[in-house]
């Protein structure tokens, strides 16, 4: 059965951070169209600081905890608490586990989603990061149920996150700053959904590259 080890795989979070830092300008540009244009800057600050603080030997759960702490306590804004809670949920779900198999990974995804929904007030369709996250979790679960292996399910998850992100283009924002724009928010993709898709795809890719089958 496909799985990854928890111990020693904190590097996955460093890869995640690298993807966010790399896309800093793009995220800010998207945010500037209907938001305040600081999404990339704040995300890069939080993820970048996390990367600096990781020493290299952390488990995946420990590294996710560091990421959560930095986001929660140093970043502020709305993304600080939202992503902070998401990664805290994920870390908690796999804390103490030796290995993470397909089912554990699904539980981890779900735990992150639960935390985001708990602290935020958005529903799917409101043009937020949920519109990337919710379909991604669904797609992952459905792929497994249909008998796919973990790596195939991870690919499905990433594809669904990106499709969900693109679907926000035609949505009208219902929460957050863009909500004040009403119809004018249509036609621009949501920055939160964009960063969420980046995160989920980096997570999928990093996990798939670490899979062992024994």
């Amino acid at each position: 059965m496909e799985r990854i080890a928890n111990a020693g795989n904190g590097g996955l979070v460093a890869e995640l951070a690298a993807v966010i830092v790399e896309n800093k300008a793009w995220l800010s540009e998207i945010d500037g169209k209907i938001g305040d244009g600081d999404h990339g800057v704040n995300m890069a600050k939080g993820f970048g600081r996390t990367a600096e603080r990781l020493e290299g030997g952390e488990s995946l759960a420990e590294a996710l905890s560091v990421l959560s702490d930095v986001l929660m306590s140093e970043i502020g804004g709305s993304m600080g608490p939202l992503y902070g809670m998401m990664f805290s949920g994920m870390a908690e779900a796999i804390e103490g586990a030796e290995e993470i198999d397909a089912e554990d990974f699904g539980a981890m995804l779900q735990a992150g989603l639960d935390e985001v929904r708990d602290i935020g007030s958005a529903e799917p369709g409101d043009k937020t990061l949920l519109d990337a996250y919710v379909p991604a979790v669904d797609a992952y679960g459905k792929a497994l149920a249909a008998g796919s292996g973990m790596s195939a399910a991870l690919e499905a998850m990433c594809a669904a996150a990106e499709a969900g992100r693109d679907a926000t283009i035609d949505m009208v924002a219902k929460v957050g700053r863009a909500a004040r724009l009403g119809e004018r928010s249509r036609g621009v993709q949501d920055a939160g959904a964009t960063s969420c898709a980046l995160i989920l795809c980096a997570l999928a890719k990093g996990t798939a590259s670490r899979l062992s089958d024994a």
Partner: protein
Amino acid sequence: MPPRSSSGSARGADAGAGVPLRFGDDLLLWASWLYYEEGMTQSDIARIIGVSRASVISYLADARTRGIVNISIETNRLRALSVARSLSEHFGLKDCLVIPSTGGERPLVESLGAAGAQALRALFRSGDTIGVGWGRSVLAAAKALSTEALQDIRVVQVTGSTSAHVPYTPAACATAMAAAIGAECIPLSAPAIVSTPELRDLLCRESPVREQLACLAELNRIVLGIASMRPSSTLHASGLLKDGPMFRDAYAGAVGEIAGHFVDARGLPVSGPLEARMIGITLEDLARVPQRIAIAGGVDKVPAILAALRGGHANVLVTDAATGAGILHAEGLSVPQVRPGQETVAGLPVRTRVKKFLNAPDEAVDEALEGAVADYAGFLRPVRGSNRALVALDGPRPGKVGVVIGGGAGHDPCFLGYVGRGMADAVAIGNVFASPPPGPILDATRAADGGAGVLHLFGNYSGDVMNFEMAAEMADSGGIAVRTLVTTDDVASAGERQARRGVAGNVLVFKAAGAAADRMLPLVEVAALARKANDRSYTIGVALEPCSLPETQRPLFAIGAGEMEVGVGIHGEPGVARQALENADDTADLVVDRILTAMDPKQGDEVALLLNSLGATPLMELHIIGRRVRQRLKARGVVVARSWAGHYCTSLDMVGMSVTMMHLDAELKGLLDHPCHTPAFRVAPVATG
């Protein structure tokens, strides 16, 4: 991962832009103008109008076949334009509209009425007190005019009534004008000319007439006809001038009549037996009206109009090209030659990198805080070594409710400028445009606590709400009672109060809450007063240029050269609507209209007025806006009891302003007057003794 190009976002805001007023709803004319006059490409036109390029090509073809694009019409139009320009320049007119002389398929008076209506629609403003004279052109203009966009207007009849059975009497003209624009009509309940000077004086002392005449001193605009003295003129038909040798001799030197007064060729008044018996506006009062619009045309009126212009009795003229040319000719000026050609205006280069005084952009907030904490060392200090949580030196004290404010950086002097005695006790500061995390908020809360609980006050943004909520929970579990009030004064952002953003109205809410706490009121009452202050605050912002973040030094979004962003927030978010750039008065009107609609004040109510720069707009422009805001409030009968102008809640270097009004009552006024001493807001104690 590269950004996906999306066809959906390409049309963007331009597509929604309306047709500029000068084109009415005529897309063919607009397209033709952009193509032939502005020299734009078909693709540019398609983008501006918001249609496909194919549609533009068919518009242009249609315009040619339907004769909209036609050399002879163009020449005629240009000629009218050059006559108008010459008249304006020579007589120092504020505005002049000259319609092409058409050659007669439509009576001149009707064309003048239509043109007059067009001019009046552009000139009239909400809150105006408009005098209306009499005559065929004035009545035709009133009849052609129709608008529902104006509020709080009074129309005043400026000449007494006449008995003649003509449709264009002074009373009929004023009534028709008032009906056309939905104004209150103030008649002049007396004859234009009475039998004796004694009777005139008696009548003018009667209270209805006296009150009506008093309104004449308050006119800010007047619409007038100009009558010629020729025997067949409307003046004779009107009953104003009785035929008879005595009158003819007395007024032999007069060439025209304006607002009931006879003037000679130089525009000077001609005295005769009628002046002492006339009831209506005096020439002195007329001269004091800032905008005096004459609508008159016809070659027979050239001497009369010329006299009115020479005498300065009118400073806006609506006439036709033949009459205009006649006036210029009579004045010894040549009618300007038509020279078709393009005046090109060089566009400013687009700002791609905004210059800023920075070292390392990432350090901008911390470096600014380091400076601010030193600058304001007499007011505040860091709570625990970090400048992200600051506490007032003279604020928190035992038994006093602590007031904690906070939010992102980039809004200076919001928020730290309001920390000090009588306002906020402590502040938490985040990164640029991003809420502080819970840590500094908790530090500020602990520092502000005097055992009576703490009020959290911040703008309604999801990030601030989440972070303050977490900090409040932590403070609560540490034994500090916390109440929260989110400010929601931005009228543009949502219909419902609780969904609105918090913008510059913040400052007045901080002031009221800080005063309540300084009076040692309990937490429940401080929170209730803060809520009341917020519920009665209304703000609208308008931006002309976007702001730029320290990290990017690029404009956050684009506002076109001829556009402005209405309902803009304080984070550089685009506003609620993009529209054509307006002048200061029209912009102020737009803002006042929306605020008054939301506030719905009664006659005699008081407001506090906060004129706020969003960063780069200078005080001079705020005062210009404020001037108009006050005119409108006066017209509505609302009193500006307190006012401030300056940088109070900004959005980095955004060019723009916001207007906040707090609907006052005695309690709120008392809270605003309570002394406070902070870096950015001070109210001196009233001297006693």
